[in-house]
């Protein structure tokens, strides 16, 4: 089912489309060929688009009532929660929406890691995705400052202070970021301005992300190229639209469970205490989705070192398509990589847990082990695995019958094992 070219049915459509090919674009989006074996892990792209739009829509409404001033910010949030019609709903959707956005993006990223979606020819999708992730973190961090509660203020203080670790110019950079000599009204104002701006940049990057996806087409759970124009692909609409919609509605059940029944569960109670520059909270912790990086930051004994490692932990992912030199994409056919993938998942969760704990004693030791493993995984294990791992034989195509029957894949591998060294791919 390859993609057919759009043929205008009327003169008007032809006139319009030859001047601005929006009809061609819409036709492309509908008929875009997707591998028929995409599983539900592939629905998170759609879920994430939904999350971004939800954040923008609720955010615009909140911005109509919010006041970005240290004297009024906290009270204006309470005004939204109490007096604005359905203001509580907008705000709870927005604050829990941020968490759901990150939950979905983590699943999306780990799906990419498991199935090798970052490998050629999809490096550009991966790198744009990382840029989106960075923007998301910056946006979420600045959004958390806006209610001007205790965690807002002290979180902003801790994070902006990181820049003072830069040699020579650190202090000037920090003062420049603050717009003064401490986190204060100018800081709040600029954070608000940027918090409103960045989602639109993110939206632009999302378009590039999808554009760069539509050039090679989707990866798939088997990780081998699909034959375009064969029965291995199905048009995006209605097949993937229906599947994405099903997954989105299931995701909304979780989302709304938080919004309506546990709206403050994911936040910190201290952020309902108005910011006070004279009282430092016992433990300053970021939101849950930033905790792994917070753990890495504090695992390194020097401040500058911590900052470098924290940023490196994200930038190392940019090099991933080249660090992982294995030609096989899907972990399904990489027995050793598969193990290390799960070790990485557990390590990141462990780091998240440790990020919420004070950096002392056993917590600090574990955070250091976790940080070390994180970098070893990407910088040492992946290049070595690419060279020495013995991968399982790949099927010929994603419609290879061995993939459809339960247990058939194992049988296939077993049979193929008998003919070790041969190119099993030539089975006909």
């Amino acid at each position, binding site marked *: 089912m390859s993609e057919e070219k759009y043929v205008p049915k009327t003169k008007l459509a032809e006139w319009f489309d030859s001047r601005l090919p929006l009809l061609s674009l819409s036709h492309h989006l509908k008929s875009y060929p997707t591998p028929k074996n995409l599983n539900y892990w592939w629905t998170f792209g759609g879920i994430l688009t939904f999350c971004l739009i939800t954040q923008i829509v609720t955010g615009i409404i909140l911005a109509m009532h919010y006041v970005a001033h240290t004297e009024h910010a906290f009270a204006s949030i309470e005004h939204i929660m109490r007096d604005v019609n359905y203001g509580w709903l907008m705000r709870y959707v927005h604050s829990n929406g941020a968490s759901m956005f990150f939950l979905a993006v983590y699943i999306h990223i780990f799906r990419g890691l498991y199935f090798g979606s970052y490998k050629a020819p999809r490096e550009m999708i991966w790198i744009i995705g990382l840029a989106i992730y960075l923007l998301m973190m910056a946006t979420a961090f600045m959004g958390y400052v806006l209610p001007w509660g205790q965690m807002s203020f002290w979180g902003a203080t801790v994070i902006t202070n990181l820049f003072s670790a830069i040699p020579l110019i650190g202090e000037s950079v920090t003062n420049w970021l603050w717009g003064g000599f401490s986190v204060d009204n100018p800081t709040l104002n600029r954070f608000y301005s940027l918090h409103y701006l960045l989602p639109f940049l993110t939206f632009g990057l999302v378009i590039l992300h999808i554009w760069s996806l539509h050039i090679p087409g989707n990866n798939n759970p088997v990780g081998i190229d699909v034959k375009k124009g064969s029965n291995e692909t199905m048009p995006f609409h209605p097949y993937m639209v229906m599947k994405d919609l099903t997954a989105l509605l299931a995701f909304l*059940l979780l989302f*709304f*469970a938080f919004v309506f029944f546990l709206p403050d569960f994911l936040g910190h109670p201290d952020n309902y205490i*108005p910011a006070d520059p004279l009282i430092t909270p016992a433990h300053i912790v970021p939101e849950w989705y930033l905790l792994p990086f917070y753990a890495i930051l504090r695992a390194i004994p020097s401040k500058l070192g911590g900052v470098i490692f924290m940023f490196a932990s994200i930038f190392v992912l940019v090099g991933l398509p080249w660090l992982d030199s294995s030609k096989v994409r899907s972990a399904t056919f990489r*027995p050793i990589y598969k193990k290390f993938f799960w070790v990485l998942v557990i390590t990141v969760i462990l780091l998240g847990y440790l990020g919420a704990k004070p950096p002392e004693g056993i917590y600090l030791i*574990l955070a250091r082990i976790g940080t070390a493993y994180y970098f070893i995984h990407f910088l040492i294990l992946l290049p070595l695995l690419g060279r020495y791992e013995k991968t399982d034989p790949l099927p010929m195509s994603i*419609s290879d019958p061995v993939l*459809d029957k339960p247990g058939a894949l194992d049988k296939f591998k077993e049979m193929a094992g008998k003919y070790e060294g041969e190119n099993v791919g030539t089975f*006909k």
Partner: protein
Amino acid sequence: MLERLNSLLAKIFLIIFIIGTGNLAYSEENKAEFLKNNWSFDGIFGTFDRASLQRGYQVYQEVCAGCHSVQHLSYRNLSEKGGPEFLPEEAKAIAAQFEVTDGPNEDGEMFTRPGRLSDKFVKPFPNVKAAAAANGGAYPPDMSVLAKARKGGADYIYSLLMGYEEAPAGYELDDGVYYNKYMPGNKIKMAEPISDGIVEYMDGTETTKAQISKDVTAFLVWAADPHLESRHRMGFKVFFFLIILLTMVYLSKQKVWSRFSSKREKEEEEAFDKAERAVTEYEGEDPKTFK
């Protein structure tokens, strides 16, 4: 090789797990567990008990309001749906008990007038500094969102009110500092506020310390979250709707997909049989001859 890797990884995790959890056991601070109550507002169908909220308002007004503000509440909230639901006249009468500073008038002078429904709750002190100065340097926190601003929420507030005790022997306490089992650090600058019979309820409810604490806690939870009831109600409707929609969308999806797969199923079935036959036939032969 793979099995050895497996067992090695398993061992490493076991060790980390044991160290991690073993450490947790004694690193947890010796914090007292909060007293538990069956709050009517807990759970997905939770609602407030109107009578309890009305009593709670009375306790707030007679006991707490001398020091603690609730600056984000308005008097009109007292008669709104989902709250204590005083009658509008009652709420008006409550508001009128307070002197509100307004102005400036035509002569440029500030003046006081009786409170109206639209006014925010009158604060006991003009500002934080004045409040702290009048309370031995400790600022009595605004109670508008107190129930959200403390770990444990309602259970914490109730436990704190019930948690005043004699300090253990040898425990040093300065003047004006009290011992409380549930306060982080056990030291609190607020004297025990609630005792048996400190208020007199009009509806004849017994005025034990526990009952009074319960009522004022419920009031504070409502004050922090005045839309709790409508949130729960809407949540229920949303779930009801979503589950039905999800079922229908899922079934439609299955139907749509079956269009695609039924066409293929036959072909694939045949291909599978063919492959299986081929393998059995040629097993043991030179695999290169497979065709």
